[in-house]
């Protein structure tokens, strides 16, 4: 089966090879790699390959997740198979004190926190945390509800994307 996979890669040496490894490991035959280098990070990459069956594709996806590769879309025989969106948000509040791991776990029930960036002026003051969250298009409502619930409960100010 013919697969087109869109992913976002960190603009660092070796990241493309790292992303291609699961495909070759599970018998995928790579036919094209399109790099969209427009100065943005992550860099958008589209890989076209052929695999034997659905099981092989599932193994590739699983390994890509292990490699923390950010998949945005998969087309199988030209039809959308899987599509994701990355939401960026900022929390302002006592995020670390109010069990940051629990916050991330709750978000991960609806999406997947793919990166986190924290600025803490001092332990007493409020910290600011930026999260990038990957989410299936069908799960966006659930994710928003989860985030709003966390903010209400832990008294965080939420800054959402447009």
């Amino acid at each position: 089966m013919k697969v087109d996979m869109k992913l976002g890669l960190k603009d660092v040496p070796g990241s493309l090879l790292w992303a291609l490894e699961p495909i070759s490991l599970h018998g995928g035959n790579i036919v094209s790699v399109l790099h969209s280098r427009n100065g943005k990070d992550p860099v958008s990459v589209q890989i076209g390959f052929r695999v034997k069956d659905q099981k092989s594709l599932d193994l590739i996806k699983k390994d890509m997740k292990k490699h923390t590769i950010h998949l945005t879309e998969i087309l199988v025989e030209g039809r959308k198979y899987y599509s994701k969106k990355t939401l960026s948000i900022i929390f302002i509040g006592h995020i670390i004190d109010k069990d940051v791991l629990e916050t991330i776990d709750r978000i991960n029930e609806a999406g997947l926190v793919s990166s986190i960036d924290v600025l803490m002026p001092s332990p007493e003051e409020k910290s600011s945390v930026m999260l990038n969250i990957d989410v299936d298009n069908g799960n966006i409502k659930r994710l928003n509800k989860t985030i709003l619930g966390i903010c209400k409960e832990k008294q965080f100010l939420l800054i959402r994307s447009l």
Partner: protein
Amino acid sequence: MKTKEINLVIIGFGVIGKGFAEVLADKHDFLRANYGVDLKVTAICERDGSVVCKKGIDLDNVVELSLNNNLKAHENWTTLKSLDVINKIRSDIVLELTPSNIETGQPGLTHIKESLKRGMCVVTSNKAPLAVEFSQLQKLAKNSGAELRYEATVGGALPLINLRKHALQVNNINSVQGILNGTCNYVLTKMADEYVSMDVALKEAQNLGIAEADPSYDINGIDTGAKVVILANSLLGMDVSFKDVAVTGISDVTTEAIELARKHNHVIKLIGDVERLDVSPRLVPINHPLNVSGTLNAVTISTDIARDITVIGPGAGGKETSSSLFSDIIDIIRSK
């Protein structure tokens, strides 16, 4: 071209009132030559009295007196209050330019109602009456046969309501969102550009006369919320009032959050999201049309045919806002 005389009454002679008077003094002949109208201000009402002159008030003189806090020295000063003027002096258009009180809508709400009841058209820059009783005022205007126009209530000089009316007629508007408060935008821009705290940015805005002595109305998002109500009712056909809008201001936005946003190619802006009836600080990509600096306002109208139209311009200022007031006045005159 035959000239038509139009009598105006100005209620409220603050920054916008004086800005309007200055522009009218400057553009009077232009308006007569191009639109065939002789605009004459026959009364100017302030809190403690009014200047009334049926022949027309000398605008340069009255602006100077007002700037020197000496309006009472005008030869035509009377103790008539604004409601007395509305009831006793017949005018074609009443300009309601008093400050907004979002809780009651007063005194503008009564001024507008009484003017409409007497069949006088109203042009206003006062958000509060419309944010509080939008549909009631529309109904009153319809029943009285007088027009109520309010382009200047949202976005200062930005043409939004008249843009929809005159240039986007065939479009369905899907959403409207943008920066509707120049003070908040100035403060957030200052924090991002110079990495200063909100207190420092706000203090500078106050020193420059951009922010009020009590800036809570702007910083807490109330001003933006009132504008969201007006846009929701006028552009999206909703029937909502201020209490229907979820409002979060910018007072808790930290310099660290602004720094994080910048590191990830974003800025933080206070966005009025009209479709969602929401006002909150939002992450805006650095290359997005809504990323405007300083006191500028910017609004994106998303439509089915024209797609996204973004209007950017000064959201405040007496002379700038008068551009919208004149747009409404000329429209009323043309429709008569």
